[in-house]
Every structure is written in structure tokens, then in C-alpha cells.
């Protein structure tokens, strides 16, 4: 049974309002932090919690906070990353829609810890309804004295504003997000300097994901050590998983880190198994950017250990036989899905979303889309597979921001695990147009893994 830290009160009617949220014990973390703790104490609790960035990179949040420069007389900023654009990920939308005040409470606690007096919640522009929800929540909290000047009589001042994006995946990258917040195109910045030194308006800035900021609420309420008791190894606490694709019960689930992947897919408490009685073919466990896993590598790792929902276990085997926790965008493919078509779809996505600054990404993503389209439509040649491999290899690691890697990895993993299916599209072009390849040997848990 999963513990609920963020979604505990999700079913309480009116939990999206300040009053009901407060009745359920909301804003206790603000009272505790502002009245009984120093900013350093708050940072220390977050460090102890072992919380890792929930947006995708998994970098320890407390450590990120520790890097923040504090020059005299220079404002510091907290910016919440609510750009949520990674295909397969919809947890932040869910959280902001239903429990906006937990994000706001986390924003106040985190801003206090970082010494920020103005903070921004950057939300992708398409989420206009969620932008309105957050603006309403801010107005309610302000009216109740939890925002504005001299919060709860502690002398701490804080204003929080919501900033809409304009429709660009790249703005989920933190420096592109800052550029966008400054009213510019979302071109990622060259690092260093990191935002902790020179971020928004050139001032020290921390950018954290919606879920990471919300997680500071239970961490402050119960203490970092309590939070760290949940989970396994360096994967502590709970995680929101966005489950989509061919499953019985798609949706957002809060799980304890360490839950077996197999249980998450087949338990009625979570995904409820594969829809329509079909068989599992493949899984993308952490959003479109992470490597796809064939069925024989999902429940167990290459060494035969149970695959768990942790940063370590999902990555077990490296990119050869593992994947990544990423953003927790859990996309399930049934036996009727075409890997080539999906890989082409993702490649088209990255081509569309490349900001165009770095040529390996700008040109390479276009090449990958074209080659994959050629193969998918029955016009490919066997050499195209090698060409595709070559193109993705030349993008990876050669760009300013991780979008290049994010575009290359899914293509590499698809070829690595599903080469037979690519070849079948080329050798049987007519058949490939009329039906899908199906399962082949992928579902066989003992079949050897193709390197």
C-alpha cells in the first residue's frame, strides 16, 4: 500500500481551496519553518531527506540549494518549473489542478530557505486553467496572511507570481526557462555560470520542479529523516508516476520508491494490467527521453533481479539493458504497437522542439525524423539503420543542453532492442504498411538481450 504524502487529501471535497486545505493541516510547514527554524535549518532538513529533483534529472535538491550564491545586497530567486512538457508526464498538471496549495506552501517554505523575496511559478502556456488555479490560490493565501509583507508576523516578505510560457518543450530546461521568463526566446544558456551563481536577471537562482517543491511540505512537517525512511538506497520518499498508454487504469499515482515495476503495471491499485487483455511489448519508464525497454527487461534486470521503481534499479544495466526514472512518465506499449512508428513520432517531436542553437541537434533531429519516416513508410534500406545509429551517436553529448541527448537516446534504445522490427519494415515494406510486427521474442522473459 503506497503512502500518500502529496496526494493524501486528494479526495477531500474543496481541497483546492485555501480554507479546506488549511482545515486538513495545510500551511503547518510554513508556520513551523518561519516561526521555529532558520533558513539553514530548512536546507538541512531537505538535505537529510535525500529528495532528488523530480523533473527528470534526479539531482539532489538540498545540494542544489546549497550551491546558491549569497552575495550581499543581491536578490535571490526561486523559480518553480511547471513547464511539464516531457511526453508521458502529466503529474504536475494533476497536482496543480487538485491541490494547488501544497505547491504554494512548498514555494513559501523553499523561498524562505533560499532567502528569496520574489518567486515565480513558470507554467506552460497551454495550462491556462492551471495558471488561473494557481493565481486564485495565491490570492487566497495572501488574504490569509501567508504571502505579502511580514508573513505571520515573522518579518519575512514574499511575493509569488505565475508566469505563462508560450508553448516550447525546451523551456523545461532550466536556463531556457529563465530566458523565457526574461521575455526572450527559449534558447538554453551555456553553463557555467550555473543559475545558482547567475540565473534570473543575472542573480543567484534556484529552479525546481513542481513536485520537488511540493515534497518540501511533508519533509518540513515530519522531518527529513522520516522522509528518508521511505524508499530504497538513494531513492527516498514518494514519487508521482504518470501512467499512460495501453493500460487499464491510466492516471497519476503516488508510489513509495522501491515498488516493483511488475506490481505497478499489473496491480489493480495502480495501472491494473494491459488493456483489452493484450500482452506487454515495451515500456518507457521515465518520459519520452529515456531508453525504451523491451518486455523481457521490464520486470527483471539483466541480472535477474526484480526491477524496482527507483533511480538505481530503473537504470540498472546502463543504457545497454536499463533505462531511467526520468520524470516518472510511465508509457506502456501493448503487442499491437509499432516501435518504428513510435520512434519516428518521438523523433519528429524532438525535431519540432529543437531550439536550433546547436547544429548537431538542429540538423540531426531532422535527419532522424526523415530516416525514420522513410523506414516507417516502407521506403527504407538496411543501410538507413546504420545511418540512423550514426546520426544519433553524433548528437549525443555534443549540444549545449540535454535536448540533443533526449532526442538521441530513444532512437538508440529502439534500434538496440528492436532492430529486428526495423529490419522487417525494410524487408517487408508492403506487409509493414498493412500490419504491425507484433511481439516476436520480446515478451519472452528468458530470451537473450540483443546488444
Amino acid at each position: 500500500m503506497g503512502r500518500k504524502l502529496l496526494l493524501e487529501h486528494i479526495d477531500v471535497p474543496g481541497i483546492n481551496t485555501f480554507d479546506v486545505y488549511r482545515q486538513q493541516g495545510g500551511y503547518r510547514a510554513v508556520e513551523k519553518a518561519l516561526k521555529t527554524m532558520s533558513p539553514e535549518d530548512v536546507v538541512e532538513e531537505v538535505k537529510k531527506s535525500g529528495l532528488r529533483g523530480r523533473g527528470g534529472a534526479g539531482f539532489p535538491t538540498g545540494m542544489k540549494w546549497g550551491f546558491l550564491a549569497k552575495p550581499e545586497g543581491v536578490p535571490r530567486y526561486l523559480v518553480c518549473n511547471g513547464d511539464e512538457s516531457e511526453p508521458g508526464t502529466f503529474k504536475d498538471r494533476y497536482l496543480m489542478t487538485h491541490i494547488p496549495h501544497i505547491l504554494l506552501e512548498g514555494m513559501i517554505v523553499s523561498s524562505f530557505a533560499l532567502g528569496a523575496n520574489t518567486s515565480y511559478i513558470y507554467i506552460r502556456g497551454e495550462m491556462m486553467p492551471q495558471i488561473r488555479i494557481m493565481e486564485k490560490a495565491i490570492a487566497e493565501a495572501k488574504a490569509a496572511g501567508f504571502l505579502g509583507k511580514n508573513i505571520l508576523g515573522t518579518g519575512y516578505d514574499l511575493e509569488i507570481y505565475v508566469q505563462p510560457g508560450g508553448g516550447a518543450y525546451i523551456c523545461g530546461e532550466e536556463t531556457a526557462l529563465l530566458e523565457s521568463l526574461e521575455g526572450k526566446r527559449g534558447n538554453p544558456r551555456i553553463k557555467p555560470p550555473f543559475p545558482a551563481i547567475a540565473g534570473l536577471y543575472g542573480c543567484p537562482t534556484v529552479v525546481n520542479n513542481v513536485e520537488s517543491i511540493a515534497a518540501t511540505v511533508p519533509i518540513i512537517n515530519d522531518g527529513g529523516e522520516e522522509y528518508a525512511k521511505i524508499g530504497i538506497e538513494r531513492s527516498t520518499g514518494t514519487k508521482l508516476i504518470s501512467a499512460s498508454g495501453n493500460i487499464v487504469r491510466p492516471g497519476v499515482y503516488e508510489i513509495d520508491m522501491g515498488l516493483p515495476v511488475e506490481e505497478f503495471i499489473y496491480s489493480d491499485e495502480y495501472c491494473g494490467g494491459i488493456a483489452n487483455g493484450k500482452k506487454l511489448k515495451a515500456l518507457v519508464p521515465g518520459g519520452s527521453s529515456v531508453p525504451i525497454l523491451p518486455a523481457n527487461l521490464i520486470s527483471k534486470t539483466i541480472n535477474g533481479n526484480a526491477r524496482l521503481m527507483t533511480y538505481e534499479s530503473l537504470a540498472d544495466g546502463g543504457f545497454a539493458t536499463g533505462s531511467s526514472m526520468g520524470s516518472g512518465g510511465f508509457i506502456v506499449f501493448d503487442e499491437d504497437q509499432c516501435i518504428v512508428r513510435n520512434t519516428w513520432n518521438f523523433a519528429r517531436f524532438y525535431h519540432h522542439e529543437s531550439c536550433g542553437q546547436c547544429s548537431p541537434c538542429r540538423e540531426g533531429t531532422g535527419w532522424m525524423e526523415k530516416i525514420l519516416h522513410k523506414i516507417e513508410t516502407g521506403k527504407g534500406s538496411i543501410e538507413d539503420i546504420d545511418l540512423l545509429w550514426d546520426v544519433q551517436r553524433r548528437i549525443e553529448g555534443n549540444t549545449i543542453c540535454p535536448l540533443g541527448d533526449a532526442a538521441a537516446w530513444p532512437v538508440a534504445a529502439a534500434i538496440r532492442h528492436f532492430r529486428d522490427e526495423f529490419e522487417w519494415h525494410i524487408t517487408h515494406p508492403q506487409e509493414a504498411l498493412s500490419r504491425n510486427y507484433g511481439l516476436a521474442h520480446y515478451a519472452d522473459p528468458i530470451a537473450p538481450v540483443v546488444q
Partner: protein
Amino acid sequence: MLSVKENHPVEFSAELLTKFAEVASRYPQGKQKSALLPLLHLVQAEYGWLSTDAMDKVAHFLQIEPIEVYEVATFYTMYFLRPQGKYNLEICRTGPCCLVGAERIMQYIEDALGVKEGEVTADGLFSWRGVECLAACGYGPVLQIGPEYTFYENLTEQSVAQLIETLKNKAQTEA
């Protein structure tokens, strides 16, 4: 693709300018350019698209060069540089939605409206386009309609047909 041909002079209302000023007050002194994206959303909600004249006037309000507005308006996918249908249906076309039938829904919309992606119906009521992941993968296929960006989830051919009918009736009532 700035379209000078389709330019269209605008005069911002006092109400809109008040909203502009409220947004601009969210940022530190001298950093008003930060208001650019929210302002363009406000203008688009008012006029349905961004004409060159509208962008020039936003530039004037923020005391920045017009090119600074154009480069932003052309970078982000939500801003329209030419008029759209009164109801612009934006359907998610990315992987997870395609696993549950988004491509079929797009084809259905194209057939039902009788216009290709990006075109406007003769009566000016509808246009449609595929957009990238809308962060609603568990409720796919999904579409959104601006300027409120209302969401329609778990789409089927029937629910889309019904939606189009509802919007037609709504337009008639408003006319």
C-alpha cells in the same frame, strides 16, 4: 513568418492596457521585458492572433524594439501570426496519445471540418492543427481550444462530432 499583407491595425482598450500594467508590475524595476509572453497571450485572447501592428504596440508599451517581440512571437508555438478559426482545435499528436488513437481522431477532424491542418473553414468558424504533448497523456486522445485552453479528454469520433456540433450552435447563438 510575419505577414505584413495580413497586418491589421489595432487600438488597445483601456481595460487591456490596465491588465498590461498589472502584469508589468510583477517584475523588478527595469525588467519589464519579462511581461512580453503574458502580454502576447492577453493580446491574442482579445484579437485571436498577433498582427504586426499589435506586436509593435506591445513593443512600444514595454519600451523594447519590435524585433524583440517578433523573435519571441515566432519562436513559441502558441502565438498565431495570422487569423485562425473562431474555434481552433489543437489535438495532441505525440507518442502516448497516438498509442490510444490520436491519429484516428486527427483524421476524423480533418474529414468532419473539410479543411486541412492549419486552414480555416469557409465560414471562419473552425481551424485545427496537431500540437505536441499537452501533458495529459493519461486522458488521451486530448484536444484544447484557446483562448481559455479548455480541455477535452478521452476523445472518440462521437465525442468530437458532438463537440463540433455544440460549438456550431454556440456560434449561432452568439451571432
